[in-house]
């Protein structure tokens, strides 16, 4: 059974008076442990798809199953629980809380799950070690390089041991040198930990680590060979 199963997904939202049809009948299935790269030009619906997969937003039409649960049927409270436990986000702009140290940033998702302080701190340090930042736990985001910040963000995404990692342009704000360890880490999560990794990207290097590339155009998956 695929961990993610999308069928005929549509998403419309209003921008002023015009109705934007961001997704127009998108089908996508992702197996557990797979690394998927989603590519496509701006406005093709990549971000909207990310939001729906991450339970941040609900589709207008179609069926969306995440880990066997029908997203359409879930209440807000259940969606909150879902994105707290099943999904880990990595953003292009890192989105770390500037006032908190690396360790506290990693602890944040665990705070909202009510995990005890000692357990939290232990796991946060463990994850920071895993991403190669054992010596940076007390640093604030503005004391870290771009690559280090993104690795803190990845440790944060892993905090509640989710099944799916959603990375939205993870190397978009990084040069090749600092982007490479981030991509290697994403690949390792799939290979070693069996996580499902979905990467939205323009970066060919990022696409290169994927098991499969899904191209989007005009709110749907583009099956043609010359799709870019």
């Amino acid at each position: 059974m695929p961990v993610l199963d999308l069928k005929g997904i549509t998403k419309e939202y209003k921008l002023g008076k015009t109705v934007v049809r961001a997704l127009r009948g998108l089908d996508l299935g992702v197996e557990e442990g797979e690394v998927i790269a989603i590519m496509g030009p701006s406005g093709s619906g990549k971000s909207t798809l990310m939001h729906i997969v991450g339970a941040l937003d609900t589709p207008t039409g179609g069926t969306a199953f995440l880990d066997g649960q029908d997203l359409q049927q879930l209440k807000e409270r259940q969606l909150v629980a879902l994105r707290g436990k099943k999904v880990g986000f990595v953003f292009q702009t890192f989105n770390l809380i500037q006032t908190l140290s690396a360790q506290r940033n990693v602890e944040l998702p665990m705070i909202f799950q009510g995990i005890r302080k000692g357990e939290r701190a232990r796991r946060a340090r463990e994850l920071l070690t895993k991403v190669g930042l054992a010596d940076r736990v007390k640093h604030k985001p503005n004391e870290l390089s771009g690559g280090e910040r993104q690795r803190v963000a990845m440790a944060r995404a892993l905090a509640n041991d989710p099944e799916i990692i959603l990375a939205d342009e993870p190397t978009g704000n990084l040069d090749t040198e600092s982007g490479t360890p981030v991509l290697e880490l994403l690949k390792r999560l799939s290979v070693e930990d069996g996580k499902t990794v979905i990467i939205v990207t323009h970066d060919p290097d990022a696409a290169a680590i994927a098991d499969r590339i899904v191209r989007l155009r005009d709110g749907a998956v583009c099956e043609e060979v010359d799709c870019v």
Partner: protein
Amino acid sequence: MFKDFFLLAAQSIMHRRMRSWLTVIGVFIGITAVVALISIGLGLERTITDQVASVFGVDTFIIMNEDTFGPQAHGPGGAEEYTLDLATLRAVEGVKVAAALREQNGFVEGGVNAEGKAIQGIFPVMGLSPELMTEFESFTGKLEAMPGGRLFEPGDVEVAVLDFEVSQRLGVEVGDTIFIAGAEGAELNVTVIGIMVPPEKNEDALEGGFGTQFSSSSDGDTISVPYEAMELLWGPADDVLVTLVRTEPGYDVDEVADRAEETLNARGSEISAVTYTDISEVIGTMTSTISAFLAGIAGISLLVGGVGVMNTMFTSVLERTKEIGVMKAVGAKNSHVLTIFLIESGLMGLVGGIVGTLLGLGLSAVASSFIGRFFGVEMAVVASPTLIIITLLGSFFLGAFAGLWPARRAAKLPVVDALRYE
């Protein structure tokens, strides 16, 4: 989890140190004013009740006309006279000493003038129980007769003590006899046993106590006789100004006062027995009304402080829109976001409350010493624990309340929009 939210809120406040302090200043100015005014009010109340207590002691009460001090009192307008059965009062259980003061205008004849004619006139005649001078000196102040004379002693009846001025006008000295005519043909020849020291020469008598009211302030033309002589001249009449009662040791002064009031009123008097407790209550009501009024005005500045907190929180929510989006994306519930922001605004209120309380108490101590010096009294400085606790809780809730609206807005931000916010 609450502790973590508390830390998150505190970190956010510390991060915006300058703005947080400005907001806190807005709060503590109001709190300072309120705490200072209430504390000064409490100090004033304590000072006055202490003064009253030092005059009254714990075992004394006053009997007044019920219109002067009682449930039907019709406001200020001076003491009303009343009739009194002193013997009945003295028989009430628990009464140790009772002393009364009454006043009439009477026809008085003194010595003879240069032409050999008797000097006569209408003068205020005051009847007072000798116990007033022996037992209730804290009320009368220190009364003093000129050398060669004396004041009343128990057992005196047909004697008189004259104010200095009236003794001059009547041309009498200690040892002379004067004639007083009372009501319905009653008349009495009384011996002058003493002449009061003139007020200007007797500064002690002017200082404190109610004594000033008895002799010094009555223009120096009063002829004082013992209470019993007054009974002989005028009989029982509606002319008693005030009665002081001391209770037996072991009796509760309020109970004895109630008993005396019931007993006397059952016999047709219209009096109320006023204890230290009654007076304290009246003073308390008065001062707390005044300080509540002043604090209410100062409360307006608190409102302004609250609006300041609200403004800061709105700015904070706007600034942290993306942060809110991130928190929600990593699993924060709306209630989590709401709680964090409420704690943040509540904390600013609380810090304002702490600073404001300290400054307010300091200010009230300084103000009290100024007021005390101005009026020549030792002003009590009161730091009421109740006031402090209420202020601190109140300031936290003021902050939280002011933050409610911004925090709700933060909590309800749609996560996708918040994440997209730049």
